[in-house]
Structures are given as C-alpha cells and as structure tokens.
C-alpha cells in the first residue's frame, strides 16, 4: 500500500495543511493506485450521502403516510355532511334587537317613500318586550309592533294565523295607514 494512502481522505476533504496538500496532490497525479483510491472514496462518500438522504426520505414519507388516511377520512366525512345535510343555518336579516320573541306584527319601512307594502308574518303569541330605543338612532327604519293582546281578547286568538298588513307610507316617510287582513 502506498505511503500516502492514509492521507487521501483528508486531502479530498481539504483538511490537510497547504504544504502537505500540495505534496499529496502531486503524488496522486503520478500514482495510478492512489488516483483509483481517491475515485473510490469519492464514490463511496457520495453514495453515503445518498443513502442518508434516502433514509431520511423514507422516515419522512412514512410519517406522512400515517396522516393520509386520517386526513382522507376527515375530508370524506366533511363532503358527506355537506351532501346529505344541506345547510341548516339560514342567513338572518340584520335587524335591531327589538324583542327576543317575535312581535305580533312587524313592519319595516325605509326612509325612502313606498306607496303600499304588504307584509306577511306568522303570528306568534308571546309577551311583547319594549323595543330598544337605541337602534332607532342607528338605523332610520320604521318598525311597528302591535301586541296581539291589543287586537284580540284573551283566548280569542287562534294559533297559527297569518296576519297580512297593508301599510301606506307617504312621500315624506310617514305612515299614512295600516290595514290588517286575515
């Protein structure tokens, strides 16, 4: 074995002092045996790095594989829910908090004049709460709430009736008339 063979890897790795590296370099140029060794060492070094990369790749991929079925199941469940359970949340109109329970008759009008507006509301018997005065300042709309107790004697209101209100609004926004139909 050549005397320089023990320094070939260090020379490849540029770990030798400059002077010593020059000596080894000249020797490698002239010695076919050492040149062959350097080639072999370089190949092995590259293969070692590739081997390590493949090992890391495998472990990383295995970790992903564990999550794939779980994520796929979650996605499938979400799709099934959407398909077989159509949306149950309806978009509610933005309205000031007048009362928790629905009023007997609720009519909204904009400040812009509208001649006649028919409003269909399902009647619900519920105690009426006074409207919050703050909302009127924030939103220039008119809301009229008439408790059913004011229109019908106690016990005389049939359940599930629909009240149709004809509202007449003047050009200046004031209410001209309100007529209830049944």
């Amino acid at each position, binding site marked *: 074995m050549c005397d320089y063979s023990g320094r070939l890897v260090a020379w490849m790795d540029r770990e030798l002092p400059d002077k010593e590296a020059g000596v080894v370099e000249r020797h490698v140029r002239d010695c076919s045996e050492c040149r062959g060794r350097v080639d072999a060492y370089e190949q092995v070094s590259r293969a070692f790095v590739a081997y*390590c990369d493949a090992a*890391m790749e495998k472990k990383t991929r295995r970790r992903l594989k564990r999550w794939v079925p779980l994520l796929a199941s979650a996605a499938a469940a979400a799709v099934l829910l959407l398909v077989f359970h159509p949306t149950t949340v309806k978009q509610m109109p933005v309205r000031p908090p007048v009362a928790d329970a629905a009023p007997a008759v609720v009519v909204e009008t904009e400040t812009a004049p509208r001649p006649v507006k028919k409003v269909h509301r399902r009647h619900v018997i519920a105690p009426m709460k006074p409207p919050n005065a703050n909302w009127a300042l924030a939103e220039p709309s008119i809301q009229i709430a008439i408790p059913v107790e004011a229109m019908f004697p106690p016990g005389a209101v049939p359940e599930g009736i629909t009240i149709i209100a004809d509202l007449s609004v003047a050009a200046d926004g004031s209410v001209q008339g309100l007529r209830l139909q049944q």
Partner: protein
Amino acid sequence: MSGDSLPLPLPLSGFATDSCEATTLYRELRKPLLRYLVCLGLSADEAQDMVQDAFLSLHRHLASGGSQENIRSWLFRVAHNGARNRQQSYDRRFGKPLDPDLDSISDEATPEQVVLEKEKLRRLGKAILLLTESERECLLLRAGGLRYREIGEVLEIPTSTVGETVERAIRKLAEKCNV
C-alpha cells in the same frame, strides 16, 4: 410537524441583529441536522422536535451573551447530546439507524441503472452496519458538511482522531462495496 417550516424565534437576537443571517443559518443547517438525527435513529417527529429545541437553545445561548463562534458545531453538539439523552431515557437501541427506501432512488435512471444502484446501496447499507458507532457518527457529521475540527467539537474527540476515524471508515466502506 412537517413540512418544512418550523416556528422559530427568529431573528436570533444578540447573534443576528441581521435577521437574514439567522435565516440563512437556519436554512443551511436545518436539513443536515435533521438528516443527522434521523440517521442516528430518531423518528422524523423526534428529529423535528430536536432540531427545533436546538435552535431554541441557540437563541437562549446567544441571548444570554454566549459565544458566537463555532455555531455550527454548537448546534450539532446540542442535537447530538439531545439525541443521546433521548436514547438513554427511552432505554432503546437505535437498531436500524439507516434504513432507506431504495425504491425512491434514481427515478430518472434506466431500469438497469436502477438495479445496479439499488444493489450498490444495499451493499453499502450492510457495510455501514459494520462500522463502529464513532465511525458512523463521524461520517454522518462529515456528510452534514462539518469540518474535522467541528466534528471533533461535537463528539468531543481530538481533530486528529476524527481524521483517522473518517479515513478508516471510508476505506472500510470502499472495500466492502468493492468500489
């Protein structure tokens, strides 16, 4: 955790007032650190955690006025010690530290080349198992781009010993693989 981005307290104050420098350090060393830890036998998750811990330790070290020299070997040493502590605390052998998926190799090569490449790597894998722990660690750190001096700092052995160990390990692999 995956992927490739980890939530780190960057920039590293005290060390890198320039956040680009810290980011560069993270980008440069993250993958070699991960590869080193995985090849030592940690799982991918454990290795990710360990790398994150190492960078957090670096942040604390520098924030408390620690030395800014030899940061690469410092990080590898923290990761190395963390891996070894974990190994001892779980009382387990890192049985198959290097167990690559050979199917993932050489996608662009011809079938003959793929077969030859796989065979070569199988032989290399067997040869790696015959290395001593120190030889394997030296080669892993060398594959991570560390200089002999840095490898010596990580493993707490003299630089000359690192040179001899690397030389011996490479020669063994070359002989076993008939390269």
